[in-house]
């Protein structure tokens, strides 16, 4: 029983962290139809910034600074690498995203010297707590609630504000909303800002839980978050969140299966198999709208 609880706990926290990255994917994909491969690396860079800033600044200053600079990074990437290619074929933009991801990883290797870096202890979040006989970190408990709050705030932003309305319009029909006077570039920037901010928050939670950061630390969570976004129906925020939790939980259950079965190595493979199956049988995902031009 203890064991089951511990597996569920880590599943939920992993899922929550994927959810925060997945929202970034789903927002960008909804509007630009672009798989932003660099998103996972932005997440990794946010983690590295967390290390360097907390080393010199008090936490109260460092963490907001991390979020702000991650937003700046996301914004800059969009302006420098995606905006010039807006009229180019979709494949070129995706290749540009792969290029940015390559650049971020190599720069991170250069700066850290290839050493795994340690994420600092963030007092409250890093402290341990005993839940029904299993010990765990506070961050594990906090994550799902924080995710829910952020998603709620995001839904408000999208449904109640002008920017949100523009976002919905653009994701429905890019060309028409441009003709109707929506300032496309502003809307896209706003999307990247929101996505990056969530990735920064996600990085704080994720790396407090798993404190070693390598230059490739963002690649896997990034890909899985994308799968979660597809699973939940791309473009749909609640879909992405539910998809992320499901994938996080499934993954930890597979890892937790008895070792005599020797299937725990397939926890990543399972995620991808799930993706292929979803794409084939229900390409619009759990909550996506059935649009013929997507798949």
């Amino acid at each position: 029983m203890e064991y089951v609880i511990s597996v569920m706990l880590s599943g939920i926290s992993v899922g929550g962290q994927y959810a925060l990255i997945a929202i970034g994917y789903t927002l960008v994909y909804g509007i630009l139809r672009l798989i932003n491969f660099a998103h996972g690396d932005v997440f990794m860079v946010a983690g590295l910034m967390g290390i360097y800033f907390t080393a010199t600044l008090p936490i109260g200053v460092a963490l907001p600074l991390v979020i702000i600079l991650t937003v700046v990074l996301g914004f800059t990437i969009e302006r420098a690498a995606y905006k010039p290619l807006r009229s180019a074929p979709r494949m070129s933009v995706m290749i540009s995203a792969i290029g940015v991801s390559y650049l971020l990883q190599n720069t991170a290797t250069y700066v850290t010297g290839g050493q795994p870096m340690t994420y600092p202890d963030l007092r409250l979040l890093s402290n341990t707590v005993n839940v029904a006989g299993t010990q765990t970190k506070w961050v594990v408990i906090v994550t799902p609630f924080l995710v829910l709050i952020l998603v709620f705030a995001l839904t408000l932003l999208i449904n109640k504000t002008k920017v949100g309305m523009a976002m919905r319009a653009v994701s429905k029909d890019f060309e028409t909303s441009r003709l109707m006077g929506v300032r496309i570039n502003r809307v896209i920037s706003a999307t990247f800002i929101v996505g990056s901010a969530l990735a920064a928050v996600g990085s704080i939670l994720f790396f407090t839980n798993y404190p070693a950061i390598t230059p490739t630390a963002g690649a896997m969570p990034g890909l899985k978050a994308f799968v979660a976004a597809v699973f939940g129906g791309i473009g749909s925020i609640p879909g992405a969140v539910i998809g992320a939790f499901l994938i996080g939980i499934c993954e930890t259950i597979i890892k937790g299966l008895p070792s005599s079965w020797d299937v725990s190595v397939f926890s990543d493979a399972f995620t991808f198999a799930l993706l292929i199956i979803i794409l084939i049988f229900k390409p619009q995902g759990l909550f996506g709208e059935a649009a013929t031009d997507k798949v």
Partner: protein
Amino acid sequence: MEKKKRSFSALICVAVLLLFVVFLENLSAIFPQVPQVFMPTSPLFTVLKKAAVYSLVAVSMNLLNGFTGLFSLGQAGFMLLGAYTYAILTVPTAMKDQVYYLFEGCAFDFSLVDMFGGIFGSEGAGGAFSMVLGCLVALILAGAVAGFFAYLIGIPVLRLKSDYLAIATLGFAEILRAIFQWQKLGKITNGANMIKGFPTFSSFNITNSSGVEVLRLSTFVPFLISSICITVIVLLINSSYGRAFKSIRDDEVAAEAMGVSLFKHKMLSFVISSFFAGVGGALFAMYVANAQAKAFTSVMTYEILLIVVIGGIGSVSGSVLATFLYVACSEWWLRFLDSEQYIGSFKVPLLRNGFRMVVFSVVIMIIVLFFSQGIMGNHEINLGALIDKITRRSKRSERKQ
């Protein structure tokens, strides 16, 4: 008539290139005083070998992405299949116990090289012949296995479009890697351990009876195989099938209306591309002298994709040219960026380990952003026309005299 003449002269160009490679490689044997760069162990030849291998993979990816418009990111997975097929089939039976030492031998107690050795003799010329034949058959089988798996995965996946297809094939490659690394299959795949001991490019160097190399062919072999494969791909592209592929790329609906069977042609392109990726994977195994699933990650696919983009999506000669530039830059010319350099007594700042890759990725980003057509766009280097021009000019000058 004109076309025939052109393809003939293109063929001659390729033959000249191959002869040049042989000459280059054996330069040091003819003139022992050549500069260091031409010694057989210099980085030049390592780079040439790797580039020859990668150019085949890049062209095969271009066939799919550039000529058929199918955005697939499964190249590393198909290379993995090819590399393992080749390795498992050619490791000599005598070596198997040592290679599979963790698993008490291999489930396949069989080697193509040994099998042909049994027929043609394993010593001297017979041995050489059976080695070459064994490798050749293994290479073809490597492609066939990759093609077969492509067919299986293609049935469901090819219905997807653009980035969904990309992410599904990427996922497929990751699944394959996990399966090949699984310790439970160790009797076949050697689990996490690398398979080694099979014939590599260096095995093709011709030695005399006392073991002295008389003719080096280790760079020529990958060039030869790659150029044959690329020629086949070019012929395919110029055939009616190739025209159907291009019509699918340009407009699926129109192509279908014109009577091109979408699924059939997509599948054909996918299987053929994977076949050559499999052959390329086998060549890659020969280049690194081992086969290990760890090497075939999505990073490798991205690298090849970037090569295709730099060369120009939809240009075979562009892909080949870009491969040689890419490999030479990343593995050879830019290496100096990784260590401290002095210009006079001035220490150049920033230079330390890892800087090479930063500069390199910046250069790639610049190409992607500002030269989105790549080196060649969708044009080709027309060897035939080039030769025509030269010969015509010389004829004209003859006439003047």
